[in-house]
């Protein structure tokens, strides 16, 4: 049976012509606006995250749908998928990481410039998932520090977008001094990085 072609029957008017990010807190007068450097940089960074997809299996297929026009990750300022770790801000690990692949993930992470964030998409990247076996890494947090975990097997594109939005939250609120702090150094040292 053929399905009826659906048109945009319900007209939804645009709220504004161009969607803009909310203005940060600050004092404003005629011809000037004063706020903290932290918030401005956070605002700029969080709306221009360049993702680096590290897709090894089915979660990668969901990511392709997420990047496509229907779900459109570009709305969040992340349409520029870089395939060079040197240029990217967000490492998105999607899929089963075998133990043999672990050093590769770490190498890619090391090649990224600070500040860098990591998101583990799907059960396998987060915890090994159903592959509770000798050959599979039981979660990528054994080799690189992870900021956001997206559960699901595989997660739907909405879940991946939710994960990216949580990364945006972290990026926007991060203190500029965090990456120079002792706590961050200790975290990296616990992974054997510098």
């Amino acid at each position, binding site marked *: 049976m053929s399905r009826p072609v659906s048109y945009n029957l319900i007209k939804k008017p645009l709220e504004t012509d161009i969607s803009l990010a909310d203005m940060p807190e600050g004092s404003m007068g005629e011809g000037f606006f004063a706020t903290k450097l932290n918030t401005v940089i956070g605002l700029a960074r969080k709306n221009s995250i360049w993702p680096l997809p590290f897709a090894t299996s089915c979660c990668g297929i969901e990511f392709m749908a997420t990047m496509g026009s229907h779900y459109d990750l570009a709305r969040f300022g992340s349409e520029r998928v870089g395939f060079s770790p040197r240029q990217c801000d967000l490492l998105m690990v999607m899929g089963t990481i075998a*133990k*043999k692949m672990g050093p590769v993930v770490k190498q890619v992470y090391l090649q990224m410039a600070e500040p860098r964030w990591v998101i583990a998409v799907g059960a396998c990247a987060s*915890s*090994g998932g159903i592959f*509770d*076996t*000798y*050959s*599979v890494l*039981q979660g990528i947090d054994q080799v690189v520090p992870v900021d956001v975990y997206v559960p699901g097997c595989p997660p739907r594109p909405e879940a991946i977008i939710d994960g990216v939005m949580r990364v945006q939250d972290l990026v926007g609120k991060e203190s500029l001094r965090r990456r120079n702090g002792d706590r961050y150094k200790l975290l990296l040292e616990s992974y054997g990085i510098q």
Partner: protein
Amino acid sequence: MTLTNKHIKQRLTDKFPEQVSCFDEPYGMLTFEAPKELNLKVLNFLYDDEELKFRFMTDLCGVHYPDSKGKELAVVYHLHNLEDNIRIRFKVFTDINQPDIYTATGLFSAANWMERETYDFYGVNFVGHPKLKRILNVDEMDYFPMRKEFPLEDQTRIDKDDEMFGRG
């Protein structure tokens, strides 16, 4: 005259009267055993014989039988006669404490990677293999994971509650 299992069995018992044994035909596929020292002699005979012509190796694998003492590890060769389209299965057994078996790489190039895989998972030492090192697992692995004494699950994991996985 087409080649039959009966005829292959006859040729083998004529050539190796005392050595080849345990003939069986599960699902119509001729299966037999030989002592591990004779594996190359048998494979060569099957290859060179003008009637048998088993000149294609489809598979080579290992099996671990922890309960049969002195014959714990098996190496199974699957051979194919492409002209008559007949397949046979040939097994040799070895002691797990001294798992030395002559390599078949001289006869079949296909045996190279399959013997490496068998070494990787079962620790069978193929004597004379050109490059016997791990092929699928990480190089740092210090055991042979398909041997029965090693559990399937990753042993480094501490966050899984065994009760919830039916192995409490």
